[in-house]
């Protein structure tokens, strides 16, 4: 099928506008995402950071169109000039895995346990590339070599259970990159892996992404990891995108109180236990009917009555930042 070429390199590769996701469940409506907007340029690496339940993965799944059917989605997701939310399953199927790929969080459960890994990569190539089965098999082995799996020819016949967690994640990366996507979404790609393996996997992803001029959306709860690999960071809290800023500015002068607290809570070099601050309270129950306009207001030390009654103010500043706060720092 004909893919509309990007009209200009200046247009963002991905534009998410006012994304809203709700799940209707027996115990009430979960307002998982509300008014999430950001865009991603060609070749850019951006991170989506937040605690569990902040809506990071829901954002990724909404972009890929793989949310549960119980989800009600509104807003716009424009990828490479095409609106994805209104695109049918057939059109999405053509984009997913080829132009738009994802590395899932837990490679062991994401891979098919009863199919050799070489075949799983070949499946992706056979589905999207114009290749024969034999070519796909050979390209699959090549991909394994590219993600630096030793002895790729022999390993192609291995099943996921025969490989370590780090090796399985390399297979996931090989699958995601097999069709040279324009955008790679990496959903907690190193959670559960050892720190040395994490460094190796992240180094590999960053290198491959940069060498192909791909864009990457890194989803992580680890601010330090996001800062090391991404130029821009979007901080999420309870389904809101609370701050979006270039990495250096975000760390130097966080504007949203939650961002500031998140940075202060992360243990790192030099900070003693007494210097670490805790963030009071927890993420509010997103099923509540009386959710305040600012969902951080109940944990915030700068709160005033209008924070609760709303509406939520989103400020765009001249230095390319966005803050969703009435009383930014």
């Amino acid at each position, binding site marked *: 099928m004909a893919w509309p070429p990007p009209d200009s390199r200046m247009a963002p590769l991905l534009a998410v506008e006012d994304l809203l996701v709700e799940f209707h469940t027996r115990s009430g409506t979960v307002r998982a995402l509300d008014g999430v907007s950001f865009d991603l340029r060609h070749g850019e690496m951006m991170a989506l950071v937040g605690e569990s339940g902040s809506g990071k993965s829901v954002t990724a799944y909404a972009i890929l169109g793989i949310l549960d059917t119980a989800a009600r989605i509104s807003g716009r997701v424009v990828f490479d000039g095409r609106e994805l939310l209104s695109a049918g399953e057939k059109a999405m199927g053509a984009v997913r895995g080829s132009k738009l790929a994802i590395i899932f969080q837990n490679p062991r459960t994401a891979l098919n346990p009863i199919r050799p890994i070489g075949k799983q990569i070949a499946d992706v190539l056979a589905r999207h590339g114009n290749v024969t089965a034999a070519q796909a098999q050979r390209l699959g082995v090549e991909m394994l070599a590219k993600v630096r799996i030793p002895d790729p020819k022999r390993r192609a016949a291995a099943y996921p259970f025969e490989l370590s967690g780090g090796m399985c994640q390399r297979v996931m990366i090989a699958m995601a990159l097999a069709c040279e996507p324009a955008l790679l979404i990496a959903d907690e790609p190193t959670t559960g892996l050892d*720190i*040395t393996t994490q460094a190796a996997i992240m*180094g590999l992803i960053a290198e491959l992404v940069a060498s192909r001029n791909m864009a990457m959306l890194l989803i992580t709860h680890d601010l*330090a990891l996001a800062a*090391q690999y991404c130029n821009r960071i979007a901080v999420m809290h309870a389904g809101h995108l609370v701050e979006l800023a270039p990495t250096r500015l975000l760390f130097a002068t966080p504007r949203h109180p939650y961002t500031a607290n998140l940075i202060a*809570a992360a243990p790192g070099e030099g900070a003693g236990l007494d210097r670490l601050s*805790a963030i009071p309270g927890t993420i509010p129950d997103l099923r509540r009917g009386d959710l305040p306009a600012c969902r951080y207001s109940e944990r915030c030390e700068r709160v005033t009555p209008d924070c609760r009654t709303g509406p939520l103010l989103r400020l765009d500043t001249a230095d390319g930042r966005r803050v969703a706060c009435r009383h930014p720092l």
Partner: protein
Amino acid sequence: MTSSAGTPRALLSVNGLRKLYPVGRKLLGRFGRTQPAMLHAVDGVSFAIERGETIGLVGESGCGKSTLARLIARLIDPTAGMIWFDGADISTMPARKFARSEWRADIQMVFQEATDSINPRFTAARAIADPLIRLRDLRAAALRVRVEEVARLTGLPAELLVRFPHQLSGGQKARVGIARAIAVEPRLLILDEPTSALDVSVQTVILKLLHELKQRLALSYLFVSHDLNVVRLLCDRVLVMYLGRIIESGPAVQLFAAPAHPYTQALLSALPNPGARRTRIALAGEPRSPIDPDPHICRLYGRCPRATDLCRKVAPLLQQIAAGRLVACHHPVDEMAAAGP
């Protein structure tokens, strides 16, 4: 100065501790004779924990740190070696018997996954009461008073005590796990990755709680973690483990500032660093197999950037390189070798 055996008055000292697990059989020469293949989970570990000390045990998954923690907690029996607690040998008593011994209350453990380690059919109060019933024989009013007292100590609101684990948040479950462990007034608390499942905001609260409890209750900690940043915050001394062995130990401040073992150096350099000033020291390949490792080869051989021929002929032993600092390496990182004895 701390030798590997510790001072005579050490709270806990461990000497030559080993735990091997049989994993299938291996062929011996011709004629199809076999002998069991052994996985060396913990392979000759010696160290001591002084009173009031917090020791960090770090290493990657599969290095044997959880097995070592379980050996010391006496949940499993060692294959060989000694464990002395407060001057008494506790390594020979079978784990089953240890559970009912006078020592059980002295050594308590906080487990990795609070969700999996609390009986899902117990309320928080019942979970905390369990060790008090078994080990302190508390009943009725006395039991309730103690449960509420421990809940208060760990910052668990009294109204949450009637809840079941699935009705509690991750941080609250972590508090229940800690409350249950300190209820019987242990002297040594073993913490196995107590915060690895928690969000960073909750993690800080729990770490501060642990720090405060240690002061208040005069506890000693063995803190098992793969998170070096957390270990740096909480621990006085650090043990670095690799494939069943301790390969470096020393005061946390010194070890983090100037790691002597190439593995420790690689581990520290892999920490995500927003400034990215540090260059990463990558280890090649995958760890050697822990099944019947060759006793003459250094366990890091094949991955180590500093390896020489010597490293595959003679496995290095732990040696003192400075006061309180031990390293098992033929070619420790230079600055430290220069500052050695």
